[in-house]
């Protein structure tokens, strides 16, 4: 009887070890954003009241498991203390699936599927005379992109910083 109990106990321990090793060695998602390969600012539209431009941000899932983008949103770090000539706002979505609203639809990120996010920035003049003047006077600005993600495991957030330089904005308007 004792031997049988010992065998059962050994089998349970062995099963626990096998499961633990299996989980530990299981590949996960690994979504990488290529900040250094982002596009330069590309003009979408320009009026005296507003300038819109896009920046493409490529990414890929280099892991071995599927990931999910739950939400992606951005916040430009342009404060009035630094520059009160313009108000910079933006939204972000998948390339080719841009929406008119500010919603980001949850999406799967399959293994090895490279794609791009598109940041749509909108600049409106505050103290500057018009949008062009506001944009040309704008200093270098960081835009924080927050990516809420999930794979098999816990929810987590990646924070990316996209730096928009004054030079690229000037080049965009030429």
């Amino acid at each position: 009887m004792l031997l049988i109990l010992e065998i059962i106990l050994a089998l349970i321990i062995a099963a626990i070890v096998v499961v633990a090793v299996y989980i530990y060695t299981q590949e996960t998602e690994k979504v990488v954003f290529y900040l250094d390969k982002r596009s330069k600012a590309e003009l979408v539209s320009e009026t005296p009241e507003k300038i819109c431009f896009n920046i493409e941000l490529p990414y890929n899932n280099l892991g071995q498991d599927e990931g999910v983008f739950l939400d992606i949103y951005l916040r430009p770090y342009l404060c009035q203390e630094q520059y009160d000539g313009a108000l910079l706002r933006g939204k972000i979505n998948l390339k080719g699936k841009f929406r008119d609203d500010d919603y980001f639809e949850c999406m799967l990120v399959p293994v090895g599927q490279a794609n791009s996010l598109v940041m749509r920035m909108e600049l409106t003049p505050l103290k500057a005379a018009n949008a062009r003047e506001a944009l040309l006077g704008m200093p270098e600005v960081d835009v924080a992109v927050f990516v809420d993600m999930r794979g098999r495991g816990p929810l987590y957030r990646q924070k990316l910083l996209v730096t928009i330089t004054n030079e690229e904005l000037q080049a965009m308007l030429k």
Partner: protein
Amino acid sequence: MGYTIVTVPTRILTHKDNICDAILEFGKDKIGPKDVVCVAESVVAITQGRYKRSEDFHPTFLAKVLCHMFPSWGSLSNWYAMQSLMDAEGSGKVLLAFICGFLGKCVGKSGIFYKMAGEQARLIDDITGTMPPFDKCLVYGPANPAKVAEEITKATGSFGAAVADVNDLKRAAVLGVSAGVDPDLISQILIDNPFGNGSERTPICIIKDYKKD
């Protein structure tokens, strides 16, 4: 098969809607006494408030372990979906189903887990499985689908009603029907997914003249 199906577009229905009222609001003039009203199961579940966001779950150690035993494309392959199943069906039941399912697979028999773990194991839609704004939610299967079908029949004056889970992969599961409606026949009629995908916003369809004279 010789049945005409009329789709009924709606606005986005939420937990503040009553499914019977919504059917009457959008499709009353299209429903006749010989017709069967069919409703997508996820929309019934949403009107019943049976959905939750990932962040509302508190995954247990067991959920964190068991989810790893399912392929990543499955609806139970992550902490939150597995926990949602355990919340709905009970952790012990899910664990027992998993052990039996594992043993079954060892002898070449599949599907045991889904038979034993309760109907929610087949019905839970993970995030991205439903249209916005519910794309960020896990959506359970509806509660009492047969009762819902009876209520729809009574409210609309139709011959009958059905609550169905249909997708574009030629899979149609009828979860509940009212009296006199054949679920197998409904399943065959709906096989081409007349509900369409979520963005078409046609969660209701009417099978015209289901009852033959």
